[in-house]
């Protein structure tokens, strides 16, 4: 076959001596870069291998579907459901706030305000600047600071609980969701807004029924990225959630979570079984993050489609 012949030729050309100094340098660079590429991916595979090799032994349906009995027995259902509860409530708090703020900054404060007084326009400009600046600063705040903040403000009110942990996570989700939503809204062509306004629609209706809809895929991507980020965070939950061997839905109940469980196991990991349970829990967490990220990547491909199609 021609292909096998060309492969042999290729191989032979690799193993013969370079003909010139330039060819030698060229090959050297190639090898050098290839090695760098491998080095970069190595940690990822090393971690996955380490975790899976150690943790797969305990992984079975019962491990996922039953609650913990003490730290060393039972499954980790309480941690899985707890993580989902925390992130779900955090999302329900963060999404409306961020989408609302993004619509205000991109749709209301900047456009169609010709009739507004000068000082109202100036005020709007400042509000936008402050919203964006604080969101950007928030993005750089270390997660342990969020934990401390949650302790001071939310735990003081609610005690160590589902709601205190969820609110702390919600704060961490704000920068990602706000900025990606803003970007998605701004990517919606002006011509779509004008088409809606020209039909006699209000800015409200235009924002909700046309702009938001055209930007939906991008917004969902942002939300998923934020979820993927906070679902693995331990520090914000450290002082805010407490721990629970069950997964109740009471807002004021203490709640378990996957990262916190791994943290606790790592702290007390003197016995073999605790060590293995830590690995198995890590597999579950990595699996969830992986699925969320895959969906995010898939959704972001759709973003490109919508924006391109709407851009005419």
């Amino acid at each position, binding site marked *: 076959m021609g292909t096998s012949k060309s492969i042999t030729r290729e191989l032979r050309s690799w193993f013969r001596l370079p003909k010139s100094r330039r060819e030698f340098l060229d090959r050297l660079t190639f090898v050098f870069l290839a090695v760098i590429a491998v080095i970069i991916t190595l940690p990822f595979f090393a971690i996955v291998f380490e975790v899976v090799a150690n943790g797969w032994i305990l992984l079975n349906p019962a491990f996922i579907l039953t609650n913990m009995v003490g730290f060393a027995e039972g499954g980790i259902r309480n941690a899985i459901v707890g993580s989902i509860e925390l992130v779900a409530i955090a999302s329900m708090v963060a999404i409306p706030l961020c989408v609302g703020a993004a619509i205000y900054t991109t749709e209301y404060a900047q*456009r*169609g*305000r*010709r*009739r507004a007084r000068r000082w109202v*326009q100036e005020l709007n400009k400042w509000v936008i600047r402050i919203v964006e600046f604080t969101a950007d600063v928030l993005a750089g705040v270390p997660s342990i600071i969020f934990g401390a903040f949650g302790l001071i403000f939310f735990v003081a009110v609610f005690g160590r609980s589902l709601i205190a942990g969820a609110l702390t996570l919600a704060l961490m989700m704000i920068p990602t969701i706000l900025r990606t939503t803003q970007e998605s809204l701004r990517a919606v*062509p002006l*011509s*779509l807004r*004008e*088409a*809606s*306004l*020209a*039909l*006699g*629609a*209000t800015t409200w*209706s235009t924002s909700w*029924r*046309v702009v938001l*809809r*055209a930007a939906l895929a991008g917004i969902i991507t942002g939300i998923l990225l934020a979820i993927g980020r906070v679902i693995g965070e331990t520090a914000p939950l450290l002082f805010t959630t407490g721990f629970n061997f069950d997964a109740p839905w009471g807002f004021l109940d203490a709640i378990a979570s996957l990262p916190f469980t791994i943290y606790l196991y790592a702290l007390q990991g003197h016995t073999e079984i605790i060590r293995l349970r830590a690995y198995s829990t890590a597999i579950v967490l990595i699996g969830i993050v992986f699925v969320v990220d895959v969906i995010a990547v898939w959704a972001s491909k759709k973003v490109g489609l*919508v924006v391109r*199609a*709407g851009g*005419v």
Partner: protein
Amino acid sequence: MVEAKIQVNDLNAWYGDFHVLKSLNFEILPNTVTAIMGPSGCGKTTFIRILNRLCDMVPEFHHTGEILIDGQDVFGADIDVYELRKGIGFVFQKPNPFPMSIYDNVAYGPKTHGMKDINEIVQRSLEQSALWDEVGHRLDEPALKLSGGQQQRLCLARALAVNPGIILMDEPVAFLDPISAQKIEELIMTLKRDYTIVLVTHNVQQALRVSDSAAFLYLGELIEYGRTSLIAETPKDPRTEAFLTGRFG
């Protein structure tokens, strides 16, 4: 004597310091097609965007003078912008259907205004824009899958769905192939029976074919206005003649 549908009285408009429309005076009769012509940048788009107050989108825009539609000043203090726009359809230069289904595109306006019998409205509008035969059996397909010409006719249907009395078109065929363009022209001529149409166009031949009256703008001034055939035969101003014969534009 027929009442003017649109009456422009000493209209001046600025973007910041830039004087874009200068003392326009003319009137447009109902059930006619009026072509607005002139070289690029002379203010054609600006003019029709004032008629439905889309000019509000530009913060630096300001004006003097008045535009009366059915006797009501579009800038009047008591005017309801949403009602005004509902009464004026707008077809943009580039087809800009919403990223939704064909049906939802046409239904958007009627739903916004709480109109009844949406299904009938959708069918009627698509028939009026000669699109029903092509898309009637696949209304739930995304509008963005249609060809450029179909998209533009969909945009026309979307505008017709809220029962406007006036249709404004900003170079509606600029981005279309000749056959699609011809379809739109035919539509303009049939729609004239029920609507007052203002058509911005660069294309002199097109203006001659479809319009009853023509306005020629030059650097924001109305140089010539009257029956299209008269202007074409005996332009009063040398600049109009230059434009008509294609020496600039």
